[in-house]
């Protein structure tokens, strides 16, 4: 067994109550590393790609990594992998902090959960073993209240991942929350809820050894020092929210369900304006030296602010009232709902109302009251919320009128805050993404914000660059290290190979890591193929094709050009 690993995963069958350790070979660990890569490999091995993701037998996997527990900054992360109830394709979501360290401390490299608990339960994993405890008192509780309540019951040293009311109600984009952050996209909260599990509480202190501890410590110090430098200044100084005014300036800020790339009230939601009238603090995940979380207070409560939440619940819904957007973001966190899919689905419904396709006259662009009401209804699956809880693709199919053409999604996953017509390398990244439209699995926007392409007139040269960002993301999600660190590396593959060498002892090269990244991307696609993927899924909704962006006539992406980009992508991937 290599250093840095326990060499096994814990498999739990909630239906039968059986739990046991399953060995992991050195070969599998080296080929898939951990996190997303290992999770996808284990999911494939379960052979359940064709199952309903909410069926009891459908697995939900928590995967750790060899770097977890090391002194490397940002390494306290875990991946949650399953078939997505939103897209019915692969889903790998990441979250951070103590749950990763405690989970690996239980003596396993991953936890595979299948079956369904007979009662509404908390799954407890600690040194005494695996057991179910009643979660009856937490039914309907928010993520934060659940986490606090379970720690009060079991002890403060337990680390808790929980779902909110949305997960209990199988909202298809509900999250799994830990320590205020979320494994957010794709609906893993609904998968856990379908297993009759409100939360997982973990306590464990087993450590793995490192192959070269002195060298690893020195490297960790160096990396931490770099993490205080200019490459991470954006995250430290202003947080991701600073994208808002920049994207607005470049006509790339999705507004009113992608009808425009600029929002006239964007400045209201900018971190500069938010900070001018509210107190602000910063927070870090455990074992992180960047501190990207910018938390604003309105005197009554604290709200963590991220660009994606501001865009999705702000400009995308036409809402420029900062207090309402912060409240909306907070309610999504409490209910356990992905802010991007929540905002995307509500914005889609607002446009359907505007077009007369949906008879809900209260649901209008710019209405703070409507936004907040819709969020509550989705979390509870009340009234129109029951339809919107299905996500924009399913809602469009129910509404008809070819509304699927304006549903802001790829493979069912709502599009993040990057206007595809203004950022066309990102358009390709969205179209081919294994889990759907996603900025965490494709960093192709980096190419658009560079001198390597003309972002509104990309050519086939952009394909290789888009693939490189996708491979790099797959590697970071498997090692696992935070993507906000990526700017500190001068030679990413060589430096992460050194990192992995010091932890595991493997004589691993940069080229091997490049092959590993490609293997992990291919594994995700393999799962999708088994789940029914066809090439026609690798595209964008009709809205984005052939029609110029209203706020920028030069921002037009023809169907022909996107088709060519996707075909070239498949060719270069060898698919």
């Amino acid at each position: 067994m290599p250093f840095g690993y326990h060499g096994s995963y814990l498999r739990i069958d909630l239906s039968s109550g059986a739990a046991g350790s399953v060995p992991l070979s050195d070969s599998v660990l080296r080929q898939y590393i951990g996190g997303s890569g290992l999770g996808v490999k284990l999911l494939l091995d379960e052979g359940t790609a064709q199952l309903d993701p909410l069926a009891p037998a459908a697995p939900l996997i928590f995967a750790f990594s060899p770097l977890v527990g090391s002194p490397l900054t940002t390494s306290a992360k875990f991946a949650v992998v399953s078939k997505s109830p939103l897209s019915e394709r692969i889903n790998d979501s990441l979250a951070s902090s103590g749950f990763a360290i405690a989970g690996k401390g239980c003596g396993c490299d991953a936890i595979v959960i299948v079956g369904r608990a007979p009662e509404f339960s908390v799954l407890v994993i600690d040194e005494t073993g695996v057991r179910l405890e009643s979660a009856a008192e937490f039914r309907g509780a928010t993520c934060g209240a659940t986490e606090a309540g379970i720690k009060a019951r079991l002890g403060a040293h337990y680390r808790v991942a929980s779902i909110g009311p949305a997960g209990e109600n199988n909202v298809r984009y509900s999250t799994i929350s830990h320590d205020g952050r979320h494994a957010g996209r794709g609906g893993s909260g609904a998968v856990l809820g379908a297993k009759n599990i409100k939360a997982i509480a973990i306590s464990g202190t087993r450590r793995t050894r490192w192959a070269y501890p002195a060298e690893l410590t020195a490297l960790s110090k160096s990396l931490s020092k770099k993490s205080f430098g200019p490459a991470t200044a954006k995250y430290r100084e202003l947080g991701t929210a600073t994208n808002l005014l920049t994207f607005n300036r470049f006509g790339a800020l999705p507004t009113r369900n992608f009808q425009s790339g600029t929002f006239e009230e964007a400045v209201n939601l900018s971190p500069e304006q938010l900070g001018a009238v509210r107190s602000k603090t910063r927070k870090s995940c455990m074992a992180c030296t960047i501190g990207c979380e910018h938390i604003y207070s309105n005197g009554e409560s604290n709200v963590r602010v991220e660009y994606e939440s501001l865009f999705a619940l702000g400009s995308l819904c036409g809402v420029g009232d900062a207090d309402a957007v912060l409240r909306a973001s907070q309610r999504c966190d409490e209910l356990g709902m992905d802010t991007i899919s929540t905002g995307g689905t509500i914005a889609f419904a607002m446009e359907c109302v505007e077009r007369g396709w949906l008879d809900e006259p209260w649901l209008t662009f710019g209405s703070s009251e409507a936004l907040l009401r819709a969020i509550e209804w989705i979390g509870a699956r009340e009234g129109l919320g029951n339809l919107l809880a299905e996500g924009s693709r399913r809602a469009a199919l129910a509404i008809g009128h070819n509304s699927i053409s304006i549903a802001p999604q790829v493979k069912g996953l709502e599009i993040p805050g990057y206007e595809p017509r203004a950022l066309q390398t990102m358009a390709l990244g969205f179209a081919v993404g294994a889990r759907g439209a996603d900025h965490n699995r494709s960093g192709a926007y980096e190419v658009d914000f560079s001198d390597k392409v003309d972002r509104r007139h990309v050519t086939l040269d952009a394909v290789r660059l888009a693939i490189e960002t996708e491979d790099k993301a797959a590697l970071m999600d498997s090692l696992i290290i935070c993507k906000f660190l990526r700017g500190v590396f001068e030679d990413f593959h060589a430096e992460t190979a050194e990192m992995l060498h010091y932890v595991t002892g493997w004589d691993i090269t940069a080229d091997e890591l490049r092959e590993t990244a490609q293997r992990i991307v291919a594994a995700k696609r393999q799962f999708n193929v088994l789940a029914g993927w066809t090439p026609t899924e690798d595209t964008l909704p009709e809205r984005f094709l052939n029609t110029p962006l209203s706020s920028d006539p030069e921002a037009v992406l023809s169907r022909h050009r996107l088709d060519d980009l996707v075909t070239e992508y498949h060719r270069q991937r060898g698919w």
Partner: protein
Amino acid sequence: MHVEFLAVPRRLAGTSQVEVQAETLGQLLTALAAQFPSLGEFIVLDRLHPSFIASLNGEQFVSDPQTALGEHDHVLILSADAGG
């Protein structure tokens, strides 16, 4: 020409815009480093640190210090990392 700062560059410069005389991008950056010492860490000689990037008229991103600038050009200086 007109220079507009966004994101971290705006915070460090303490202003959103400024007028600068320069014939090339390199000259412009040298002038900005002199005028705004707080940007010094991010301007190395006549080039931007990789964490910053320049856009010419909001249409194309430029990095070559020899890039010619016209009197009526509008240069935006912003954080290069657009990750959210």
